[in-house]
């Protein structure tokens, strides 16, 4: 599915310092019943965000108007658990274009890269600095520069670089996906299939 190209993103950020945020929190299973990719942003962090009677929980960060932006900053091991791409869809559909953490679960990270959400892995120290900067000033801006592979706290100029494969980077910058690539090498795949061991 097509997504917006990613180049340089400068935005304030929403902090969620809890560790091991799992995919069941990001999007609970009972909201996976759609057969189209619509409306998942409404249920992002559903049970942390809303009471059982659907009234918002004022203490949850997404319900706090002090915090906003296109970047979600999460604690260590963000996105653990299920392979549901719906978790990445919910993050994207809510309006986030990047998630920053000191560690990502494997499948979630992969799903994000496939749909146009940039996972930015920083050191635990830098993550701590980001959380502190946002706590001191909720309007703190982060600049994520994909071509340069850097993330900067604009208030202080502190910067770290982050990893991404050159292939995925080019995809994100151009809004390409893997299916485009695979479609182009289909005959090579079909030839390969004739030489499998079994």
């Amino acid at each position, binding site marked *: *599915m097509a997504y917006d190209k990613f180049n340089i993103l400068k935005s304030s950020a929403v902090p969620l*310092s*809890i*560790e*091991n945020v*799992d995919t*069941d*929190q990001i999007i*609970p*299973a*009972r909201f*996976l*019943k*759609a*057969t*189209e*990719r619509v409306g998942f942003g409404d249920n992002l962090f559903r*049970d942390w965000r809303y009471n*059982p009677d659907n009234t918002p929980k004022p203490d949850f960060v997404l319900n706090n108007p002090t915090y906003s932006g296109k970047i979600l900053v999460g*604690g*260590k*091991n963000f996105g*653990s*658990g*299920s*392979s*549901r*791409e*719906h978790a*990445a869809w919910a993050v994207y559909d809510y309006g986030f274009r990047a998630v920053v953490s000191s*560690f*990502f*679960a*494997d*499948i979630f990270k*992969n*799903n994000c890269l*496939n*749909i146009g959400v940039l996972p930015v892995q920083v050191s635990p120290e830098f993550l701590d600095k980001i959380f502190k900067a946002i706590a001191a000033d909720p309007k703190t801006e982060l600049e994520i520069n994909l071509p340069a592979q850097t993330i900067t706290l604009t208030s202080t100029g502190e910067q770290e670089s982050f990893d991404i*494969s*050159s*292939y*995925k980077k080019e995809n994100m910058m151009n809004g390409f*996906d*893997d*299916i485009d*690539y*695979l*479609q182009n*090498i*289909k005959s*090579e*795949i*079909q030839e*390969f*299939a004739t030489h*499998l*061991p*079994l």
Partner: protein
Amino acid sequence: MSKTLFDKVWDKHVVRKIEGGPDVLFIDRHLIHEVTSPVAFLGLKTRGIKVLYPERTFATADHNTPTINQHLPVADPLSANQLKALEANSKEYGISHWGLGHQKNGIVHVVGPEYGITQPGATIVCGDSHTSTHGAFGAIAFGIGTSEVEMVLSTQCIMQPKPKKMRITINGTLSRGVTPKDVALFIISKLTTSGATGYFVEYAGEVFEKMSMEGRMTVCNLSIEMGARGGMIAPDETTFNYIQGREFTPKGAAWDKAMEYWKTLKTDADAVFDKELAYNASEIEPMITYGTNPGMGIGISNQIPDAEQVEGGVETYEKSLNYMGFNEGDSMIGKPVDYVFVGSCTNGRIEDFRAFASVVKGRQKAENVTVWLVPGSHIVESQIKEEGILDILTEAGFTLRQPGCSACLAMNDDKIPAGKYAVSTSNRNFEGRQGPGSRTMLASPLVAAAAAVTGKVTDPRELMEELVG
């Protein structure tokens, strides 16, 4: 060059390596279910492309299906709609579809092996993280996202970097009352839920060599819960005996040829892993979780650790214990139990019901607990009946439900109510996993059985003494 089992299987499936990027990996077998496939099929329609090898994909409905009255129409319109979409998409693209009511219907990771779709040396994917289950057969099997489901449907390939390799060796003999589930929960408690992220795990040593296929599936199933993409065990006589004669396994000369290849699927003696861990079987006792991720497990006779004893932030730890209504230092023995769930792709196989029955035999269900016993497939359901297990269960006051994922993720009506405690043989104790506000303690079928007859957390070894002598 020496290779690990993982290298041997992965390298055989690399169509192309992209410099500075992932490998293009050919997928032998693709399993789909109703939840993570509809958007992938929509993608195919939007792009106007076909399924390249429909014979390599198998569809079964499991996540949404009811576990009682399966002959009646599915009441939840959204669930019914997903089930219908799976059926329609399978039909349109020529994919085998084992829907609700079909004799082969059941949990995708239970029926795949039962029908011999799962084979050594294969690459197997499914839009479900517990696809790691199939690694028990020496396959590379792992969960993928919906974008990748679309890739596999359209080109039979996905694009992923090759993971690092880890070997976990456990030698020795497991103590009485210690099951494969306990082995897995023990490893996860040591590694945490992120300790194997970025790795593919091979399990080795006497404990896994002696383990049944059902047990190996339980262990490999839980690989994802320590962050690993998957886990695998080298195929051996136990594996070959299990798969021989199943519907989709090779027959005659093809079987002999396959066996010749499968016997080469083991890690070379001098192959190198990126990380090696070793434990002794005697370290492991029946396990139970006390928190809100599968890494928060302890031996059942132990006390809940203090925040400073565990890795990670205090804030996260306290949030977790608050959710569970537990305190640091609490003993797990004697904790209240409202629900018991036996089932799922982790522990919904015949051995799990045999284990459960061995403890409840001659006892009675505790009045304060609601017990849901959910077989993983119709084959498991039949075995339960044929082996006389159903009679034992019925006499002890239990009933058997129909196959499906059920309360493991509570997408159907099998939801643990808010605030209630469940001892569950499934795989995740995340907040709300078994229903909004539900509180889950993960454990083996033996621990589940002990809870089911005593109505509280109980060491199953106390109830097993008379049986083992």
